């Protein structure tokens, strides 16, 4: 990776952080718990790293660690999105 690549990555990081701050600032307090379980699920994007690691792995120990990482992050992803939906379904307005 060249220095230019690093700078681009850093650029993306800074922009995404500010975008995140702006998006979350507007979220109603009512929705803070589902918001947190949603962002918790999104943080399991590390699954992408675990998949690459396991899929490309030649050595047994790499595959073992990679599979543990896949299990962990898919617990996070599946559980996070499912419970967020379960919570959101409960929010109802007065009739």
């Amino acid at each position, binding site marked *: *990776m060249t220095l230019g*690549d*690093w700078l681009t*990555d850093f650029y*993306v*990081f800074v922009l995404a*952080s500010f*975008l*995140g*701050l702006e*998006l*979350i600032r*507007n*979220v*109603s307090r*009512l929705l*803070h*718990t*589902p*918001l*947190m*379980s*949603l*962002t*918790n*699920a*999104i*943080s399991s*994007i*590390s699954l*992408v*790293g675990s998949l*690459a*690691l*396991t*899929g*490309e*792995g030649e050595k047994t120990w790499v*595959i073992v660690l*990679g*599979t*543990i*990482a*896949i*299990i*962990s992050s*898919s*617990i*996070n992803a*599946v*559980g996070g*999105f499912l*419970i967020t*939906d*379960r*919570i959101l379904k*409960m*929010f*109802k*307005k007065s009739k």
Partner: protein
Amino acid sequence: MENIIQFVYICSAALFILSLKWMSEVKTSRWGNWAGSAGMALAIVATLLKPDIHGYLWIAIGIVIGASIGTPMAVLMPMTAVPQRTALSHAFGALAAGLVGTTEYFLKASQLSLPQLVVLSIEVFLGFLTFTGSLLAFGKLQEIIPTRPILYPGRNYVSFSVFAFCLLLSAYMIFQAGYHPLLFISLIIFSLLFGILLVLPIGGADMPTVISILNAYAGLSSSFMGFLLNNKLLIIAGALDGSSGLILSIQMCKAMNRSFTNVLFGGMGQVIDVVDPSRDGKVVKSLSPKEASILFEAAKKVVIVPGYGMAAAQAQHVVKELTDVLENKSIDVKFAIHPVAGRMPGHMNVLLAEADVPYDKLVEMEEINPLFPETDVVLVVGANDITNPAARKNPGSPLYGMPILDVDKAKQILFIKRSMSTGFAGIDNDLFYSPKTIMLFGDAKKVLNDLVVSINSQ
């Protein structure tokens, strides 16, 4: 192929951003969750298309095991346990990030450049400290270990030394590039230790803040993994998660009038036995639920203040029943929601939603406070610190300055509580001794049930 994969990653990033945008309103929030799930699905598919990937069997096994653990955790978990589930989930996510970093190091340590070593160290440090920190938070929330802060003399020096040692180890590995397996394993061990030291002195009252901070760390860890793998989707998703955790913890700190560093290193929630000399001679009035139910007869406006006591007694459904009974008598009922009521940001809203209380009856602190003077009866269900007028009046109180619900300004206060014991902050509530307050001692569920029966028979 690479271009197609990158294009799908861009779509996935856009879906995550839409997901957070839609999450800001109840109307569109379910769309938000679907967009997030779709973004994740696209990211997985795109990654599996990579030409270097061949070990599909283990990937499939991993995902199947993960999904079969994650699904029951989400579907069967009672809503009172959502904070625990979230903490546990953070632990898993962070473990994955830590493990990926570890494997990368052992595979390619000697080929890594200086910036790669920097991001790898941060990823591994954040990943493993979040892992143990979240597990500990889970233990505290599940009450496997005591929720009160665990304090020992010189704890700040110990934590700081461990942190400094992690920094030193990383600095050495970064500048002495090459393969240092023992140093790397020490970094893992000390990061794990630091996570424990970080959460150990934090008490139940600060749990909402801790959970959001851990959320931010888990996200940042994924983001730094993105730097290492030169994957912009990971950087974006991780940064979105990081900033969301950060902003929520800042909001939680504001709601408690506490500084960030205070939450991280202080120990509110420690049981300070404030023997208040002025307490002697003060009278506490208490009634049975049956006697107290008469107070609702003349009432027109009632506000219910739910606290963790309600959650612990699983009393949200009886609260809803009581609401229906009162509304049948044309009494106006509202709920006053303090931002840090419960053990997770917004937890009370979820518990009440679970009991079918419509969300437009839930009123936030800023909007409900001016309404208290014209409220006939306030019913506090197991909420202590967030209603303590000492936060407004007594500069000597550890709660002083914390924004509270101005329950004391209402005409009549009914306080449901198990005993006279203190809340999370370990501080006596002045409200108990107010001439306007009547205590209803007992389990929240039972007291509320008795109230419902008596009001119905009137």
